[in-house]
């Protein structure tokens, strides 16, 4: 048995599924102690768009440019196979189109693909715009990069939701059943292996989800709407792909039945059977589904030859007319090749529809079953889910503090592609996406929300997972010396100053071995009290003092940007008590 195009299509689907699973696994494992077998920056290195634009905007040669060049060379060699076979966002869009096809069929009675639209050029326009901005030193790749969009949605929405739902759900069951040993053991095991100690929460997750959802929903109108018309990574890959010698060959087609034009998910095939190489993602549907059994669709220029399904089994062929072949050889429900056309939601041939409905109708078809099953689960579990969804916690932070090892502000904004890796990996949930309203140019870049978390003294994970080195990969020792900001006491709130009560939670938690927060003895309202003060030279701004400070709602100690911390030498004059 030879490798037919059918096998290639199955291989493609397997590849797509693996890619989504792999990236999901990578993102899920982006947490302490970072034991995942692949660096979280891996997918970004495969992304020439993000790498090149970032390099231009920042005028720097990123190491990722090497892999970006390899990807472009591959695109020249075999076309946009990345889009059809690897891209996790593309895979999700395909899956969604497939799952939603029964729904679409209900409402769109006759869907045929029109001639390739000039609107496809929009993605080149977007790429050009991003490029021009990059030349001007403004980084905008993060808005439209598909890998970033996928990773961000997974880190900020999917992971917290799934994690939170499992954690809360299991805890409800545990609480209601009185913590049976076996279930608790399972729960603790799950936490250690899978869930982590706590579920992170992110501000602006709603907006981030909105962008992702919009892209998904657009694919209901047109399959791979995003990839056809908007994706700048696709456009980047299309630039070399359009000159690729590896092409679809329709020399042997005699019928021009139009099947391939209608099933093409990228709308890359014209009515006259010609196609647009820059649009083709090598999904191979047109090869598999070609009804003309003598009419060969093959990639042939460079000697690569993928034979259409059936040409092996029926070497002689029965007919020369594609249309007749369809009706005669594709009886209802018994030919595997046939169904490929239907569960994509595209009606190919009206005769075929009649043939289909005249046959025995199954009680519940596969896609119908899957759609209704998923629908029922989602709707029926709504009350449980409602309990499980993390409540939109605090509002976003107005903080301008950057992660430890971050480049100077302007450079940082140019380099950061807002992938969210640093925020996902942060063990204390300190790193949060900044708001769009605050500064649109810096939107969704990581800032420190010191009311949610603090910078863990022995941790340098954010620098390790940054794909563009916007956060430097510091050693733990270097990171401990890196000054994020400086802690400043608010003596109107800090208890030993304001009320003369002992507290010293800040001093207790200060992780600097010599203590950046020291203590002096004072007398307030006749009471002897221990008052803390900061040694600005030792303070690295980790903000554990601010987080753990027990005053509410305002904290007695706040970490400020270095330039804002008026370095009052209050402490230096006073001798510390030993």
């Amino acid at each position, binding site marked *: 048995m030879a490798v037919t195009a059918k096998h290639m299509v199955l291989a493609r689907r397997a590849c797509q599924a693996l890619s989504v699973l792999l990236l999901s696994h990578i993102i899920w494992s982006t947490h302490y102690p970072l034991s995942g077998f692949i660096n979280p920056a891996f997918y970004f290195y495969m992304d020439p768009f993000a790498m090149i634009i970032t390099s231009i905007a920042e005028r720097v040669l990123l190491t990722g440019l090497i892999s970006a060049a390899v990807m472009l060379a591959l695109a020249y060699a075999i076309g946009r196979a990345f889009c059809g076979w690897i891209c996790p966002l593309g895979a999700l869009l395909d899956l969604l189109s497939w799952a939603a096809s029964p729904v679409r069929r209900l409402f769109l009675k006759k869907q045929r693909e029109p001639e390739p639209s000039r609107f496809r050029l929009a993605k080149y326009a977007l790429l050009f715009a991003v490029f021009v901005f990059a030349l001007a030193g403004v980084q905008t790749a993060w808005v439209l990069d598909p890998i970033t969009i996928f990773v961000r949605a997974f880190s900020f929405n999917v992971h917290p939701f799934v994690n939170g739902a499992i954690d809360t759900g299991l805890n409800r069951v545990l*609480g209601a059943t009185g913590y049976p040993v076996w279930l608790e053991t399972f729960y603790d095991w799950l936490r250690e292996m899978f869930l982590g*100690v706590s579920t992170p929460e992110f501000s602006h997750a709603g907006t981030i989800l909105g962008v992702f959802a919009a892209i998904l929903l657009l694919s209901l109108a047109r399959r791979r709407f995003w990839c056809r018309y908007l994706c700048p990574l696709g456009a980047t890959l299309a630039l070399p792909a359009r000159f690729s010698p590896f092409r679809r060959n329709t020399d042997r087609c005699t019928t021009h039945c139009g099947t391939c034009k209608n099933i093409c998910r990228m709308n890359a095939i014209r009515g006259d059977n010609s196609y647009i190489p820059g649009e083709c993602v090598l999904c191979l549907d047109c090869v598999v589904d070609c009804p003309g059994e003598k009419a060969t669709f093959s990639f042939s220029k460079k000697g690569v030859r993928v034979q259409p399904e059936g040409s092996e089994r029926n070497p002689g062929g029965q007919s020369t007319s594609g249309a007749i072949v369809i009706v005669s050889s594709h009886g209802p429900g018994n030919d595997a090749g046939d169904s490929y056309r239907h569960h994509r939601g595209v009606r190919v041939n009206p005769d075929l529809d009649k043939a289909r409905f005249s046959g025995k109708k199954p009680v519940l078809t596969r896609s119908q079953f899957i759609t209704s099953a998923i629908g029922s689960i989602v709707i029926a579990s709504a*009350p449980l889910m409602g309990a499980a969804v993390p409540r939109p916690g605090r509002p976003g932070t107005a903080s301008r503090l950057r992660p430890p090892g971050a480049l100077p502000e302007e450079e940082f904004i140019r380099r950061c592609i807002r992938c969210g890796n640093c925020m996902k990996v942060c063990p204390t949930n300190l790193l949060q996406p900044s708001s769009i309203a605050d500064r649109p140019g810096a939107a969704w870049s990581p800032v420190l929300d010191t009311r949610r978390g603090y910078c863990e003294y022995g941790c340098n994970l954010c620098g390790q997972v940054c794909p563009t080195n916007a956060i430097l990969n510091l050693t733990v020792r270097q990171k401990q010396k890196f000054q994020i900001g400086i802690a400043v006491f608010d003596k109107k709130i800090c208890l030993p100053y304001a009320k003369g009560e002992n507290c010293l939670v800040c001093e207790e938690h200060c*992780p600097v071995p010599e203590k950046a927060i020291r203590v002096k003895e004072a007398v307030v309202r006749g009471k002897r009290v221990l008052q803390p003060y900061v040694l600005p030279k030792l303070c690295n701004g980790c903000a554990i003092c601010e987080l753990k400070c*027990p005053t509410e709602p305002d904290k007695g100690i706040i970490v400020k940007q270095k330039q804002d911390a008026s370095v009052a030498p209050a402490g230096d004059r006073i001798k510390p008590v030993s």
Partner: protein
Amino acid sequence: MLKLFDAISRLTGSQKAATSRKDFLKGIAAAVGSVPVVKALAGPLLAGSEETLAPRVKKSVRTACDLAVVKGGSPAAITRKAIEALGGIDLFVRKGDSVVIKPNIGWDRAPEYAANTNPEVVETLIRLCKSAGAKRVRVFDNTCNTADMCYRNSGIAAAVKNAEGYISYINKAKFLPGRFPAGSEMEDWPIYRDAVECDCFINVPIAKHHGLTKLTLSMKNLMGVCGGMRGRIHWNIDKKLPELTKFISPDLTVIDAYRILLRHGPSGGNLKDVKKTGTVIAGTDPVLADSYAASLFGLGPRDIDHIMQGERYGLGSTDIARARITKIAV
């Protein structure tokens, strides 16, 4: 391989999708209709808990001496010897008991920095409990730094696993309001359920410096079973710690002073601040154990207010001179 692909293709492509709009709407209606059923079934799961925790009752145990102080050997050897000197672990742990061992795992520091309890001390205690027939030996701490980092880098997670104890991260849902005496400042303070619901509670602090309380010993170590905004326990801490200790009533206190942290506690981080004294102190009286441990720092019970308050509260005695103390050098 190709045959497998063919089989898959036959499976995935064998049926037609012939949905009618009616069927589809029926499906939606059924799903929506099932919401109240699911809600009713899930009712108990959605209800909030109103449980509270009653204080623990301390075991009355007649030990061979009031305090065992063992010095000189490996952490494992001195721990073993100290328990032996008290009369053996069998005094505290019966067959089938569920035991809680509460070390200090508060900080993301390696054992050498003396910020966390020595893992070998913990491991030895678990082995002893297991040998006495304990069914489950739980180890946990509500950490100050990130829990997984503390558990791992303190060496305690590995030690517990070696000894086949049970270590788990704090589960926030298991904090319940404690029934402290009315009017107490600790009233309704969230306390970890497992700390109270056990047959035997062994408190295993490390002796170290602390900015506010001068030293952190066994009574201060119990803050690790508290939830809520724990920083507030620092407000009037000398009164709160005895109340907390009374509530938990540890059956056995084993103070790890193998290494002690002299300055910059409780988190430390500088090896110059660490002194190796090679000592373990064990006893049933937390006040006495703390008083003795203070002497390792050149302090007396009178220097540390919460120890004095503990004596006044009836938790034990600060009188080291009169106590029956067995001192052993290994």
